[in-house]
């Protein structure tokens, strides 16, 4: 099974990289671009066939290491 983890900044947390991306897109003429927020995508191969167990394990990985929950949110998708 694969776990796909998206890590994003919480609302209200300043995202200077996102702002720089928005500015770059504007300078390329994409003038419909509003706010841009960037984050991380992590794909993990898991030796686990039980979906519930996999979900609980990846949640722990996120809370312990992958995300800093002071400023980041995470979401997990499992793919067979």
């Amino acid at each position, binding site marked *: 099974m694969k776990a796909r983890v998206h890590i994003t900044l919480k609302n209200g*947390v*300043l995202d*200077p*990289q996102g702002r*720089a991306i928005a500015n770059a897109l504007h300078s390329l003429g994409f003038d419909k671009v509003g706010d841009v927020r960037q984050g991380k995508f992590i794909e993990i191969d898991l030796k686990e066939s039980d979906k519930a167990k996999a979900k609980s394990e990846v949640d722990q990985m996120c809370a*312990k*290491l*992958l995300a*800093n929950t*002071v*400023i980041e949110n995470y979401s997990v998708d499992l793919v067979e």
Partner: protein
Amino acid sequence: MKSAIVVFPGSNREKDAEAALTEITGTPPVMVWHRDTELPKVDLVLVPGGFSYGDYLRCGAIAAHSPILREVKARADQGMAVLGICNGFQIITEAGLLPGVLQQNAGLKFVCRNVNLRVETSQSLFTSRYEKGQVLSIPVAHHEGNYYADEKTLDELESRDQVAFRYCAPDGSLDPSHNPNGSQRAIAGVFNRTKNVLGLMPHPENAIRELLGSTDGRGLFKAMAEALAA
């Protein structure tokens, strides 16, 4: 005072910290490798600057889970003094010894220069040789020094006298143009609740010689040596 410096692959200011501790406290620190699981019996552990484990994932995140950091955390909980400088601040914050997080600088650039630093309290084992409100000149060198915590945490830090240093103008006033990284409330260094742990982004160990521009960092090492003298 006996001290130890924790060294990770990617640490790069450990020799500067070693020189400062040796010269000012009179006793050379023990260097401890990141894989070690036991700390020698010391009064202070210094976590130095650098790019521990390449700062992969987030600055300090991987170092925060190394075997030696578990030991540092356990001793800090028992009251041992811990000083985290720059990457060391990021590491002990990721490890949960201090509140908040250090984000990328608001200006997206690596900042390397001397900054003005206002001492916010002299009531600690780290800052007792300074006056409250005193302005120091200390260098910074970082890309992720933008201190962030939610409003409630920031209010608590202020009400418990846990803010150690703020970035300021030369006259000590707070001015956004003198905040090098966009830190919330211009915070450059914070204590834990019991004030035996200090983390700061600027490098006091690089401000101990006139030849290099400032000796304002000496007071921090003198204060520790006095407070932790056996």
